[in-house]
């Protein structure tokens, strides 16, 4: 009477000399793979140094099952010897296919030691950061050269894409820009009036609104909304074209991606952002006027009279002159990152994020520089 030392749904191990007999039974398929794999080491332990794998009672076998048989054989072999017997004809080919595959090897991408990882991160981050600033700068240069070229030869400007882009980045963002400008104008007056009322100076909230909104808030808000809305769209559009080799196709057709993709977007933004900024100024002041009417009982007519007295046109120009610069930054960052997309969906997402972060950061930094400049020239 042979001594059964292990038995479950899929494996029966019978002790014996010189070899333990491992009878495989049931269906060895992907459905049972977890269970079969889980008891592998246990089976190996009870087998001792030599084992025969008997496949004659095996039911259904698929490639996963064949891989499992190979794993069993490999584990048993490590402890001594293993032999495969009783292979049915219809299983033979599968086992052959699998055994011609290489033995398992670790396939996780190689990492570095944990204590080096932060160092590596800082190093690669710095190098990549410097390199990408350089690239962005050279891209900006290239775009400016092309832009200058197309001013010399206006027939190179692609009118249809330009108008199309103007509709998308300009017209269609009027809703969101208007809403936000209106609310910010109203909130400025609302909060300002509460504070200024403590000094009995609540009428000066109109000065505050006019100067704050025209010089800074109106255009800055517009630029940030457009960066989030259109800058990201530029990256995503151009990036997905890069992924589908459309940009390469353009190059081989003799079309310059800068001319075809970048310049219409850049020009559209440079034209539309000042217009949107103007629109945001008007709507924001209207919002403030409404709040002043509700909260301070200043009628719109009185509001306008006072507004014209205290706010000079310079404040408007100081704000609006920044718009084309902001537009150039947003369009350049968006298009540059789009063209730099490579390979994977991850890269597209990462580039889109980077485009928005870069453009908002640069817009605010440039705004600060402008503020210093205008103060020092006395505007």
């Amino acid at each position: 009477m042979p001594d059964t030392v292990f038995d479950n749904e899929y494996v029966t191990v019978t002790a014996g000399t010189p070899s333990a007999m491992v009878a495989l039974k049931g269906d060895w398929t992907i459905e049972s793979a977890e269970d079969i794999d889980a008891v592998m080491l246990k089976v190996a332990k009870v087998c001792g140094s030599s084992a025969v794998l008997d496949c004659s009672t095996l039911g259904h076998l698929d490639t996963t099952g064949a891989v499992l048989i190979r794993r069993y054989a490999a584990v048993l072999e490590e402890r001594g010897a293993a032999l495969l017997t009783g292979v049915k004809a219809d299983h033979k080919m599968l086992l052959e296919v699998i055994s011609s595959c290489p033995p398992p090897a670790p396939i996780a991408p190689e990492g570095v030691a944990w204590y080096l990882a932060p160092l590596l991160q800082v190093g690669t981050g710095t190098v990549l950061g410097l390199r990408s600033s350089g690239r962005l700068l050279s891209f900006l240069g290239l775009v400016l050269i092309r832009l200058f070229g197309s001013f010399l030869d206006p027939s190179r400007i692609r009118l249809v894409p330009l108008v199309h882009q103007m509709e998308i980045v300009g017209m269609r963002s009027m809703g969101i820009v208007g809403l936000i400008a209106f609310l910010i104008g109203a909130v400025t007056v609302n909060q300002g009036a509460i504070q200024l009322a403590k000094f009995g100076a609540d009428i000066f909230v109109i000065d505050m609104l006019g100067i704050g909104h025209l010089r800074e808030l109106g255009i800055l808000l517009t630029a940030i909304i457009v960066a989030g809305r259109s800058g990201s769209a530029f990256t995503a559009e151009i990036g997905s074209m890069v992924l589908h080799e459309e940009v390469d196709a353009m190059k081989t057709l003799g079309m310059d991606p800068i001319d075809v993709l970048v310049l219409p977007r850049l020009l559209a933004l440079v034209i539309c952002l000042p217009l949107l900024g103007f629109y945001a100024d008007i709507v924001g002041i209207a919002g403030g006027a409404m709040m002043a009417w509700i909260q301070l009982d200043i009628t719109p007519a009185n509001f306008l009279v006072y507004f014209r007295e205290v706010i000079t046109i310079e404040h408007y120009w100081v704000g609006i002159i920044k718009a084309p610069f902001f537009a150039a930054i947003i369009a350049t960052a968006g298009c540059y990152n789009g063209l730099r997309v490579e390979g994977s969906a991850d890269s597209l997402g990462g580039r889109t994020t980077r485009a928005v972060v870069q453009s908002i950061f640069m817009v605010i930094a440039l705004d600060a520089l402008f503020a210093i400049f205008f103060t020092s020239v006395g505007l």
Partner: protein
Amino acid sequence: MRFLPSSSQAWGSRVTASNYKGEFAIRVRGLKTAFGPHVVHENLDLDVKRGEILGVVGGSGTGKSVLLRAIIGLLTPVAGEIEIGGRNKSEMTDEEDRLSRRDWGVLFQDGALFTSLTVAQNVQVPLREHFHMSQDLMDDLALSKLTMAGLPIDAAVKYPSDLSGGMRKRAALARSLALDPSILFLDEPTAGLDPIGASAFDELVQELSRSLGLTVFLVTHDLDTLVRVCDRVAVLGDRKILINAPLAEVRKFDHPWVQEYFGGPRARAAGIEKS
């Protein structure tokens, strides 16, 4: 703890699908698909026998890929019944439908690998989704499938964007084989492969079909594949299946497109003699 049922009885649809012993793996009756006013198929009937390799051919725009997409459920037909593994798709619950998908492998025309994962991880995606295997076993399985599909080992850790078109196709085949499906849908598998790779691919499909009893639905333009691998050939045209028969019968079929297709110089090169 696992939330998936573990024993075989709980996988209702899977059991019926893989244990299905009926004659036809796929039955399509009265299929109509349309994009707006443009009708692609109308009153289309198609039977695919269990364990056979069916080649689907047809001119460009006759809706080969649309038919495939309708059968695998990526496209809702306007009318008609589709039965896979003896079960009518329209009668399945969402959960049954989801589980039944474990029983098919699909190879898309340009691979459709996940670009943010390595090749090995791509193969492991279906395993991870449907099972709870050890990483070690999954690595082993992924490597075996990749080798079966004819990829070198070092490709396993690469990203799809680092591979050539042919290698991407092989990686995608490995992924479609990951769950040991009983039905394999291949959309132009040999397009873009070199002749050596293509014939190795043909052999692999044939071997798998024989040893695993795999049913293969193969959309192709490759005449060599039709000759060497396919048990039967279905010709799409005039919005339906013109003929679904062994190659010898198909090439005698009296239809101008069929005659031109199998009588052209490329067909002669593939060894189809006009009788």
